[in-house]
């Protein structure tokens, strides 16, 4: 089946087109959709791309940051003000994939992809969504909940997030069985800000432990209000897999993911991510 490519120049125009055409999908970098096209797995008849400059904008001079959906991993890596996201962006593919893969596309990426999405969830980012002519901001959690429910036709304009207070307050870890660039068997991201020497507002996120990136609520409870010391890390590791029923797939079994989660979580929390990466 031939696929039509529609090019729009304004965000609203693209969103309206997506709203009108049930079999249309928004084309970001194409790393997932063109691959589906090649594999004969395309569930769309029209691809919509948008050249609105706002999609490619990065505003990162202050504590509140906005990143357009069309910003690629390569551009994140080239932007010094986004240094806290560099480990997550670098974990996505090789340089050619990073030059194509977009932030917006990562939010729609099914497992085992979507590593940046896990980072954005840990950072409590807000997703700007354009549906038809209406715009709204939703949390990454709400976005992920809606994702499987027709959100393929939703247009993500960008994300907003607050810069972590210091570089050690955000941690990211991708575990892969193929080095240097395999897909993720397990990804972890954490925001670990301290107030008076104790952790406050802890957010810990796993990817590939569930159908979509998800917060590790038991780990967050174990860490909240504690010091990030050996005792605190052991308490977190003890409940690392609580609340998760990880999938069994070609990368790892459910049992294996549960068994190694405490090890990698401990490495994430101690800042020893290189041993896992």
């Amino acid at each position: 089946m031939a696929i039509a490519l529609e090019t729009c120049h304004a965000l609203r125009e693209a969103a309206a087109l997506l709203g009108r055409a049930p079999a249309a999908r928004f084309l970001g970098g194409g790393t997932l959709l063109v691959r589906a096209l090649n594999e004969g797995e395309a569930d769309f008849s029209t691809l919509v791309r948008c050249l609105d400059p706002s999609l490619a904008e990065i505003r990162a001079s202050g504590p509140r940051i906005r990143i357009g959906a069309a910003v690629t991993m390569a551009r994140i890596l080239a932007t010094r003000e986004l240094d806290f996201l560099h480990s997550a962006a670098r974990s996505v593919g090789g340089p050619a994939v990073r030059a194509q893969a977009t932030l917006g596309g990562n939010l729609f990426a099914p497992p085992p992809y979507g590593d940046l999405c896990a980072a954005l969830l840990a950072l409590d980012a807000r997703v700007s969504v354009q549906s038809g002519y209406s715009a709204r901001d939703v949390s990454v959690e709400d976005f992920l909940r809606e994702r499987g429910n027709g959100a393929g036709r939703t247009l993500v304009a960008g994300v907003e997030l607050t810069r972590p207070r210091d570089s050690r307050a955000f941690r990211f870890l991708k575990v892969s069985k193929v080095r240097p660039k395999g897909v993720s068997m397990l990804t972890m991201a954490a925001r670990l800000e301290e107030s008076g020497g104790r952790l406050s507002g802890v957010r810990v996120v796993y990817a590939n432990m569930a159908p979509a990136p998800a917060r590790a609520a038991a780990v967050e409870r174990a860490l909240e209000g504690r010091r990030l010391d050996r005792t605190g890390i052991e308490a977190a590791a003890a409940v690392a897999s609580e609340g998760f029923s990880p999938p069994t797939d070609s990368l790892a079994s459910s049992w294996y993911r549960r068994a190694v989660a405490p090890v990698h979580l401990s490495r994430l929390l101690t800042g020893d991510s290189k041993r896992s990466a």
Partner: protein
Amino acid sequence: MSHLTLRYRLNGNERADLVAGDETLLSLLRYRLDTTSVRQGCRQGTCGTCTVLVDGEPRLACITLAATCEGCAIETADSLPGSGGLHPLQQAFMDHFAAQCGFCTTGMLMAAKALLDVNPSPSREEVIDAIGGNICRCTGYEPIVEAVLAAATAARAGATPPAAHRHC
């Protein structure tokens, strides 16, 4: 099926070609323009053998729609040899036995060129990252890394890269 006119530059030459909306850059370059240095491998964006440069950035031609390259400068491995002979990367790949079956080689060369164009003095780790999206099933990668490092040294010196110890 609707087609559009794609205006772009291929290896320095201005071109205008009719392309379908769902035609990949790989399909255009390899199968319509006979640019066979652009190899077809996985068609999933995984193996890297179709790597070309689009406006200086490495891109996987198999998962790039040709229509999205309007106005772009596209470079393939065909652009590498200059009037003075082989590109330093090509010479280094020969000298360091960095090509065996050769299937990955053109993609490797372009991935390496993308690196050296912006970073003439890469570290070993930077070279490994640069070719991290390109799969080679022959060499074990080490001769390729050595070749890229040697090419960088040679390019900085403006000379032919020094030959490595031959493996055979």
